[in-house]
């Protein structure tokens, strides 16, 4: 009887292992969450293009159709000899310049459908913020054309900037919570730094930061991030926001410093 049980157990485990193995061997794609954009009033076209690029190739989901050449027109490469989207967007609809055409395509896609394609494009204003939409417009314009999206097009740009810089921004992060992980998530640290298993790899990994930096150096890195740059990350100087001193309360800052210093 034990032999039968073992054999059945082996068949079940073997089948499960096979399916799990195959599913792990194929390309792994995770559906990311579109992140809110915090654009300053002095946002440059280059910054908009960069943000749009990330959206286009990531959470925006654009590549599911555009680029395959079957469901929707290619945008980044030539389409029927007319060049990429930035080169052809101004000639699509009479009376509409490139910027207006692309914005309309994103927010009212049924208005003009390119001949030969089905009207399958969703209205992205349901899922993306105005800032994200304008970042996408800028990115698409940059594909063979000239970017003419400016900060004045982006409705909330100036509001975001003033809010962060003023006293009103204090303690808004994580609603004043002193839970360090809540602060880290709410302040967007994970966009660049890794903490635990979460986060990106643009900035230094913070998992063992306590063994490299003292508490006072950690505090200085939060308040004045450009004062000292970790070796190997020199080219990213200026990227980390310098506004955390205004946005965090003293209790939040100290909680964060203690938390990071304990990561040895």
């Amino acid at each position: 009887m034990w032999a039968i049980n073992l054999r059945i157990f082996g068949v079940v485990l073997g089948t499960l292992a096979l399916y799990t193995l195959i599913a792990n061997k194929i390309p792994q794609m995770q559906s990311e969450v579109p992140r809110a954009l915090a654009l300053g009033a002095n946002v440059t076209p280059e910054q908009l293009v960069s943000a749009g690029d990330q959206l286009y190739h990531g959470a925006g989901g654009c590549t599911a159709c555009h680029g395959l050449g079957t469901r929707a027109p290619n945008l980044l490469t030539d389409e029927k000899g007319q060049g990429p989207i930035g080169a052809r967007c101004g000639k699509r609809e009479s009376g509409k310049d490139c910027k207006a055409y692309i914005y309309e395509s994103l927010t009212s896609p049924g208005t003009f459908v390119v001949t030969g394609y089905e009207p399958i494009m969703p209205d992205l204003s349901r899922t993306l913020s105005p800032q994200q939409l304008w970042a996408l417009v800028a990115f698409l314009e940059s594909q063979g054309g000239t970017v003419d999206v400016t900060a004045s097009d982006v409705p909330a740009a100036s509001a975001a900037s003033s809010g962060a810089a003023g006293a009103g921004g204090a303690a808004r992060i994580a609603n004043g919570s002193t839970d360090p992980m809540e602060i880290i998530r709410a302040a967007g640290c994970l966009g660049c730094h890794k903490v635990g298993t979460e986060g990106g790899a643009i900035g230094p990994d913070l998992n063992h930061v306590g063994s490299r930096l003292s508490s006072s150096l950690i505090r200085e890195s939060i308040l004045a991030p450009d004062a000292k740059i970790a070796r190997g990350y020199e080219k990213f100087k200026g990227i980390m926001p310098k506004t955390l001193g205004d946005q965090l309360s003293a209790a939040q800052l100290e909680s964060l410093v203690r938390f990071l210093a304990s990561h040895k």
Partner: protein
Amino acid sequence: MTEHLLLQAVADTTGAYRDFPFIGSRAAVWIAAELHLMFAAFVLGVPMFAVVAEAIGIFGKDQRYDRLSKEFTRLLLIAYSATAIWGAVLVFLLSTLYPRFWAYLTAIFGTSMWVYVSIFFFESFTLYLYYYGWDRWKYGRAKLVHWGLGILLNVWGTTVMFIADGWLTYMMTPPRDITPSTSVASIKFWEAFMNHTWMPINIHRLIGNVVFGGAIVGAYASYRFLAAKTDEERAHYDWMGYVGNFIAISALIVLPFAGYWLGREIYQYDQSMGITMMGGFMSWLWVIQAFLIAVLFLAGNYYLWVGMGRIPGAERFRPYTKWLLAVLVIGAIVWGTPHTMIADSRELAAMGGSHHPFLGVLGVMSAKNTAVNLMILATFLSFLMYRRANIRPVVPWAQSGTRIQGAMFIVAAVVVLFYGIRGYFVEAIVRIGYSVYQVGAVLACIVFVTIIDVLMARGAQSLGAIQWGKMPARSQYALFILAVTFTWLMGLMGFARSGIRQHWHVWQVMPDTSQYAATPALGYASIMISTCVLIFLALVGFIFWLGGLAEKSTFVPAASTVEAPHVGH
């Protein structure tokens, strides 16, 4: 990344989420929901064929089916408690880990939740009456009343499922006029409840439950077969395993059509959701699904072919099995061919374009629909050979009848191939319509060939009784593979259905702003699915063992010399 740092939209997360220790909230809810659904599928599927088996027992005056039905129901009784327990775990986890989302759902569907619980209460007691009254209400009119209880049990179960489907389909396809700013108080219950995908999910789950129930019963029977101490017991469980497999595979043949309807409704509701499902980050999922279904077809057919070894007269059909195997293998390969996958520029360059120069032709719907329809025809032919193995029709029109059956197979295959090839030369919108002709030809073939076969089998000469129990052990392991694969497939499709909402609790109405908002890749999902399947099968094994402690099996004692008939005779 510059000062326009991308920030997670977490502004409103305070109080909306709590975390679960060690495995996190998402994994905790995932496991609870999946296990609840697996048990629920079993306890909803089994009563359907328990009632059918009891009816065959009553009206066909065959006690064997009555005993089989009772044994099905005994399995049901204990599994029912597990369903309720996992349902309670799911509710507690949702209400404590996702309190804001749970409050939102209850604000819209609160009344239906009370109705749900009430019906669950009635369902429980109907089940107890049905099972414990089996021997008391065994004869005459009382037996019919007992059978009516079985029907009532199905009505309660189906209603409960339909109610829960309203909640989950609302999360996928809420009415289009509901937006993030819509006040919950202004949402009309019936509009939210009977949303776009409600009925397609109902039908898909209804059929899926039968498939699942049949597969689990088949696995149970195979275990009892392997553990049997006497030939009689072995014969009984061999027969039970055959019935379970027959039910599972028969319902499986219809399931893709229900799935097609559901997919079409998703596309009609929101193209981007459909594209995410079929061509977006989930596109590789369908390659895995094709592999799993290939395993199901191959294991199901293999079981039948091995089973023909215990049927006198089956030798004359054996030479055909290698051709059926070839059709199934080639069909599975075509079905599993990827088409428009998300690929980066390097992968596109390596492939030589957005599609593979040769395989891209096989990855399109024309080829896939052709492949799956031919696989269904091949499987149906296997069943037909199994049915016909030990009989020789004696009706005067037997020869013509067989020729007509053969012609129907050929016509169906030609229709499937013709529209499959023609599909390459027409617009997409025309091509989609062709699948209806292909499916219609296959279904018509199945229906008319079966009718002819049933009529032809009347008074047929027997070539010898089926030697139930004389089945090699390897065939029983095929039933286990079927059960594991069905369960895994159910977990995979659950991930697909839930995952296409991506970072939304309610699609484009209520965003998921928790740390688990990103929809994980298939590798992580497969580990979760395998974990759930393992827990489920371990619990089912334990429950069946408990059932065995409480009561002896219902196999037919040696006194009966009646040959166990084929299902459908």
